[in-house]
């Protein structure tokens, strides 16, 4: 029966996974590239207040809609605000939204998925709810939620988290269902281990590698969706610069100064590209099926 040895889920497996991820990082230059670009973006965004830039909110009507100059590296917007400073500061919100959505959706989905996978009765009810939630297209649901709750950063994060939760639940549940009948779980049940302990110590560690990969994709998607929400006017409030709402404001002026849309768009695209390449590399490193092929 056990011609395929199954690694028992000890905490060492997590360490092992991270070790192999680190290994892959060295072997896989695109993944390293993703990580480096991301670190750079985080540094530029969160360091922005300390670089001595112009105030991102200071209006200067004399200099409105300027092309890039020495004074304004990326030009100015319709109120004469410095685009360079706005774009760097805007990264804070976009990255914050991306990371928060990935973290929240993963933890909430993990908890629900573990319970649903292990209890048939809960499973039947919870999965119907998840199916229904998944049949509403994610952006529409998020738009409706923000329109209703009002524009604020926490609301945007929450509205983007809710549509992602069912996807995490499904992933976690599928791992739990696969493991539930494995010998090591049966052995744990037979030796009287409590259900909670089995879930946390034996099953949860096995859900972590695919979850990390999923989390990177959710993070990338959330950064883009934040921009969509702001673009249609149901996102980050206009007084806080984010890549999304800088672009949204540039909408009516895109003939005069395309930079208002292009520069934050470029920063956003580079960031999302970096997150995606990082996630792809991570998947190759953590998915044993992929490893065998390579």
């Amino acid at each position, binding site marked *: 029966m056990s011609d395929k040895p199954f690694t028992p889920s000890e905490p060492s497996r997590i360490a092992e996974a991270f070790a192999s991820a680190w290994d892959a990082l060295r072997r896989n230059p695109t993944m390293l590239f993703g990580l480096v670009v991301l670190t750079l973006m985080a540094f530029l965004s969160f360091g922005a207040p300390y670089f001595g830039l112009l105030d991102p909110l200071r209006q200067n009507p004399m200099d409105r809609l300027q092309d890039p100059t020495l004074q304004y590296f990326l030009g100015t917007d319709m109120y004469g605000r410095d685009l360079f400073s706005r774009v760097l500061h805007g990264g804070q919100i976009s990255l914050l939204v991306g990371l928060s959505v990935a973290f929240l959706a993963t933890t909430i989905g993990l908890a629900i998925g573990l319970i649903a996978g292990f209890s048939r009765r809960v499973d039947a009810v919870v999965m*119907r*709810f998840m*199916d*229904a*939630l998944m*049949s*509403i*297209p*994610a*952006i*529409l*649901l998020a*738009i*409706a*939620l923000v*329109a*209703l*709750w*009002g524009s604020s950063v926490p609301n945007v994060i929450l509205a983007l988290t809710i549509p992602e939760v069912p996807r995490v639940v499904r992933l976690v549940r599928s791992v739990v269902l696969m493991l539930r009948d494995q010998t090591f779980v049966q052995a744990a049940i037979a030796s009287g281990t409590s259900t909670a302990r089995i879930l946390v110590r034996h099953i949860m560690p096995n859900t972590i590698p695919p979850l990390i990969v999923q989390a990177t994709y959710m993070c*990338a998607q959330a950064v*883009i*969706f934040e*921009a*969509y929400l702001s*673009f*249609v*006017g*149901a996102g980050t409030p206009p007084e806080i610069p984010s890549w999304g709402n800088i*672009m949204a404001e540039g909408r009516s002026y*895109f*003939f005069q100064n*395309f930079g208002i*849309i*292009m520069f934050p*768009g470029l920063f*956003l*695209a*580079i960031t*999302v*590209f970096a997150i*995606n*390449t990082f996630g*792809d590399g991570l998947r190759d490193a953590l998915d044993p099926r992929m490893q065998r*092929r390579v």
Partner: protein
Amino acid sequence: MYAYVIRRLLATIPIMGLVAVFVFLLLHMSPGDPAAIIAGDNATEENLEQIRALLGLNDPLHIQFLRWLERLLQGDMGVSIYSGLPVERLIWQRVEPTLLLTLMTMIIAITLAIPLGVLAAWKVGTWVDRLVMTVAVLGFSVPVFVLGYTLVLGGSIGLGWFPVQGYTPIRESFTGFLLHITLPALTLGLVYMALIARMTRATMLEVLNEDYVRTAYAKGLATRKVLIKHALKNAMVPITTTIGLGLALIIGGVVVTETVFSIPGLGRLTVDAVLRTDYPVIQGVILVFSLTYVLLNLLIDLSYVFFDPRIRY
């Protein structure tokens, strides 16, 4: 087969029922008083009382839900707060542009993505593969509207090949329609194309390792025949699944794309409704999009018979 189709159709009823509950609760989950949301900022207490009485907001929640559902099943989605017109009529007027835009997008994206994915899998590890995959990841990374505005600047203003914005109904002028729909369809199609190309490549890689592919090569079949008849046909089930699930991306993208290109479709209707917090319209649009999404994915499930004769319903 027919029994299965009917069973699956019946199974969508509880799901759509739950969607209806969510959509109904959207208005009632809000932090404020629904009457206040509907009445707007300048309403007096008297106005609010009138609205509550008119809409039956003083009744228990489940009674309100059942009453709403009963009307909904008769095709009555309520009345727009902004324009006072029936929501179902507003939606119906806007269906054509969105439907045709979605269709064009799907046609362009699928006919480009599947060959590209097959090519990447066939040439795995070479520069062709790497190029296709890099473009695919880029497709995921560029926000729809940035691509849209870039195409407007390049294709309409720069080259002058396409009209800048707007929409021509297909009945008025077919060429006009095509010229207006091309850039939005390309804009909307990039993410979708990236998704399908990646899925095609991944599945093809798996299938190309199978014994029957080796056998097909061994008996001297032409590469094209092996790739298309033996490999691609067997890879079609996961690919079609992705085509169906990816529709959610298109529906989300429609909202943004129609705004960029000023197309009077359902996406534009949604954005206008959001800006005016026109709740009945938002609810109606979500219901229509979700129902379409669920039914299309059901259709796709049924299409598996076509690709894999082992599947019997």
